[in-house]
């Protein structure tokens, strides 16, 4: 057998191994969460408020808190990301300015999430005096996932062949019309993809929100912008800290399962929205 064939085979098997490893990790993780978590799930668990620091009762306010923050986050990020992407793609023509913009976006993406938390604590809670507020949490999460959305939207707008822009311009359309009728449908599509990735990340984040947006117990549905909420990831954290109590530990698994389920739910609804947009896409 010649060496080329051996190398070929080795390489193929190495990639296969990597793939299997990836699949096993995922199955193991999901399997454990479902296995351990399903024991805690019940109608009461999903509809009752927390009692005795999470060891008993349910997680209804954690669920509503997380959903409220995530939806607000999406609403804040989406238009800003789309605007940034359009500006970067259609108006920013100076190569140096483009470079600076890209560097800024990538740096924002590289900031660890706990730094966002500390920034929120200092800027909003201490300097602006907002107190612990779910809305501030949403703003911070929006800042955190902004680069992901911008990059996805930018890539999809930028991948539209320039002949579409030129054809539309040649029909006497203004730049504004070209952007809204030709580029935006595709940009929205990309921004939704970014939103899926961003939201899946934001909904599970603990560090950025634990100082500024959430309280660990005794919280209900907020009636103003400046009230704290409870959220699923911070609830998991507080339950894990009481791991010696088997009831609390089981509820931690149950909460994890609900969190994973929410991520999947958001991803699926995002995919559905994207399919609807795809019809009129280039």
């Amino acid at each position, binding site marked *: 057998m010649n060496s080329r064939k051996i190398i070929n085979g080795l390489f193929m098997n190495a990639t296969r191994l990597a793939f299997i490893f990836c699949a096993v990790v995922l199955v193991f993780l999901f399997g454990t969460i479902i296995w351990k978590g399903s024991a805690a799930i019940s109608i009461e668990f999903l509809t009752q408020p927390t009692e005795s620091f999470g060891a008993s009762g349910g997680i209804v306010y954690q669920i509503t808190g997380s959903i409220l923050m995530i939806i607000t986050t999406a609403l804040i990020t989406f238009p800003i990301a789309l605007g940034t992407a359009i500006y970067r793609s259609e108006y920013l023509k100076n190569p140096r300015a483009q470079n600076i913009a890209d560097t800024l976006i990538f740096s924002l993406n590289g900031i660890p999430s706990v730094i966002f938390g500390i920034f929120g604590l200092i800027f909003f809670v201490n300097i602006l005096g907002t107190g612990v507020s779910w809305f501030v949490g949403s703003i911070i999460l929006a800042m955190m996932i902004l680069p992901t959305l911008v990059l996805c939207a930018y890539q999809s707008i930028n991948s539209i062949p320039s002949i579409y822009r030129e*054809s539309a311009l040649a029909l*006497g359309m203004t730049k504004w019309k070209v952007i809204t009728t030709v580029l935006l449908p595709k940009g929205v599509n990309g921004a939704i993809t970014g939103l899926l990735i961003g939201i899946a990340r934001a909904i599970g984040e603990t560090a950025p929100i634990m100082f500024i947006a959430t309280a660990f117990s005794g919280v209900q549905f907020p009636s103003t912008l400046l009230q704290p909420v409870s959220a699923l990831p911070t609830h998991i954290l507080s339950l894990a800290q009481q791991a010696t109590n088997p009831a609390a530990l089981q509820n931690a698994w149950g909460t994890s399962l609900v969190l994973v389920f929410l991520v999947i739910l958001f991803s699926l609804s995002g995919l559905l929205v994207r399919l609807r947009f795809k019809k009129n896409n*280039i």
Partner: protein
Amino acid sequence: MIQESFTELKDSTTITDCEFPVLNISGFSVSINKTNILKDIDLQVPKNQITCIIGPSGSGKSTLIRSINRINDDVVGFKKQGDIHFQNNSIFKKNVDVANLRKDIGMVFQKPCVFPKSISENVLFGIQHSKKQSKQEKSVIVEKYLRASALWEEVSQRLDEKGSSLSIGQQQRLCIARTLAMEPQVILLDEPTSSLDPLSSRAIEKMMLELKKEYTIVFVTHNIQQAKRIADRIVFMCEGIIIEQGSADEIFTKAKHPKTRGYLVDEYCDC
């Protein structure tokens, strides 16, 4: 103003039969990122004629006609000297509304580019943004311009189908219909048949001869036979310079410049 342009015309030695130029290009040079693409172009485009710009690829034909409707404006590093007048007004003046200019000077590109919409929506794509129309008026427009672009017979039964379902040749005719619907005065065509089969190419050539009754046409091609079939005037370009221009008869029977004669025979030019 008019007096001036007439004296200019009389001074010009190469142009003899061009009495009412719709487009007047004078001393026009273009560089992109400091590379000279066009050098000192002087050209007048007469009304209701087909002016064919021929020349090897890289000769600046596309850059020239893309400058006429200012589509090149957005090209990074684009710099120009000289001027282009459309109906005696400079198109580069500060107060010119570029969008309006492009309504008067339509353009069809090398590759057909239909929008991800139905056939009829594609015809209306440009016009719907400049005028509000009733449903009735819209269907009149769609039929009128699909007929003008010789596409009506083929698509009248499926106007609501996607534009992309058409063949490439049909798509290009759809692009022409879309441009005609804007009711421009000048149509610029940048090698519109180069990606089409011979049959579709002939259909478009035939259409051009029909359209010149109402429109002024500038047609870029590197196909000499095609130019022979449709051109009233020929402009031969090479390396960013106009080597020779004149009526089609003149150029094809007794071209003065040896480079032109060489190109017409060999389709090759070592400028």
